[in-house]
């Protein structure tokens, strides 16, 4: 077994539920490296939602809460506020986070609560068999858009920045080092760190949207679509359509962080400074 897996995975929960070639595994891989390089695994509680992504915390040999669909951020908010000294990482799928969990996503960002949120975006609802999600490209064929997706696509990173998250970045499975670095930055960042990881879903999105179940072909598609933020700035909207813009969109550790606000309020209420 890989030494990081030996150190940090919950053996009783293995093998993972990820399909062969699922990008979630690469994100977990990057997370383990980030946590190991920082040496802080024992300081972190993990919360996941429902869906393939949401299983990730279960595979981690730590304090783990497998929450309801869309509610991981709400659970994490309570967990963090009850014990602010511990770090909390939330793993959520794109549907879990931006559809059913959208309200909690919006307000966790607005509060800028000190959590590390990793959105594993495979542009589909994978666990339930491949239905359209808010992040599914327009026109794409899925199980609930067999005639093509009539809906526009949500950019979760833009939403996070607008709502107030103080660290927002996006990388793909084809950028493991940059993803690891972003996760490290997110883990030490004070405030809500939103890291969107774009991943392939060979079984659902692959077969229905891209006509292939090959992890390698889907990996190539992701690489092909990727454009770095520095270059995206010079492109016209038409040129950016359908592309995956990666990079660090926002980083400001000076923004007020929610846990500090709440505990500061408590100190004042108790007559402290």
């Amino acid at each position, binding site marked *: 077994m890989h030494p990081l897996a030996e150190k940090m995975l919950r053996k009783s929960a293995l093998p993972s539920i990820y399909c*062969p070639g699922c*990008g979630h*595994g690469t994100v977990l*891989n990057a997370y383990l490296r980030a946590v190991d390089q920082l040496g802080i695994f024992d300081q972190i509680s993990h919360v996941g939602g429902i869906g393939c992504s949401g299983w990730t915390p279960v595979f981690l040999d730590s304090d783990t809460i497998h929450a309801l669909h869309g509610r991981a951020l709400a659970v994490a908010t309570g967990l963090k506020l009850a014990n602010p000294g511990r770090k909390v990482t939330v793993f959520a799928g794109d549907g879990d986070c931006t559809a059913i969990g959208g309200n909690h996503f919006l307000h966790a960002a607005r509060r800028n609560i000190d959590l590390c949120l990793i959105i594993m975006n495979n542009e589909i609802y994978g666990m339930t068999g491949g239905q359209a999600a808010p992040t599914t490209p327009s026109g794409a064929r899925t199980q609930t858009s067999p005639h093509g997706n009539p809906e526009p696509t949500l950019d979760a990173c833009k939403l996070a920045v607008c709502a107030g998250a103080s660290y927002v970045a996006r990388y793909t499975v084809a950028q*493991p080092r940059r993803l690891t670095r972003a996760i490290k930055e997110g883990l030490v960042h004070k405030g809500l760190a939103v890291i969107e990881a774009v991943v392939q879903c060979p079984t659902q999105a692959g077969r229905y949207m891209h006509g292939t179940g090959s992890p390698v072909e889907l*990996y190539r598609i992701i690489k092909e679509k990727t454009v770095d933020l520095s270059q995206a700035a010079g492109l016209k909207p038409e040129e950016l359509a359908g592309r995956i813009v990666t990079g660090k969109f926002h980083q400001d550790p000076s923004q007020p962080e929610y846990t500090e606000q709440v505990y500061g309020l408590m100190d004042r209420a108790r007559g402290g400074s």
Partner: protein
Amino acid sequence: MSSVIRIDQVFCKGCRLCLEVCPRGVYEAGTERNAKGYLAPAAARPEDCIGCLLCEMTCPDLAITVTVIKKEKKRCAAS
């Protein structure tokens, strides 16, 4: 430059991303199914490994462990 490359036969699901990402063609498609029924790739040319670790970092199942035996003098640009 060479490495010892271990592929965990319990966890490898034969997705072949390692073949895809390796810049030196160290891997080749597997010919024997492992205990779980997957065609796990084999590290056919570990002596060509440059220690970039892309395979180890990309593997969705953490099935690959690369131990670099001799380091190249040149360093990669990406950290």
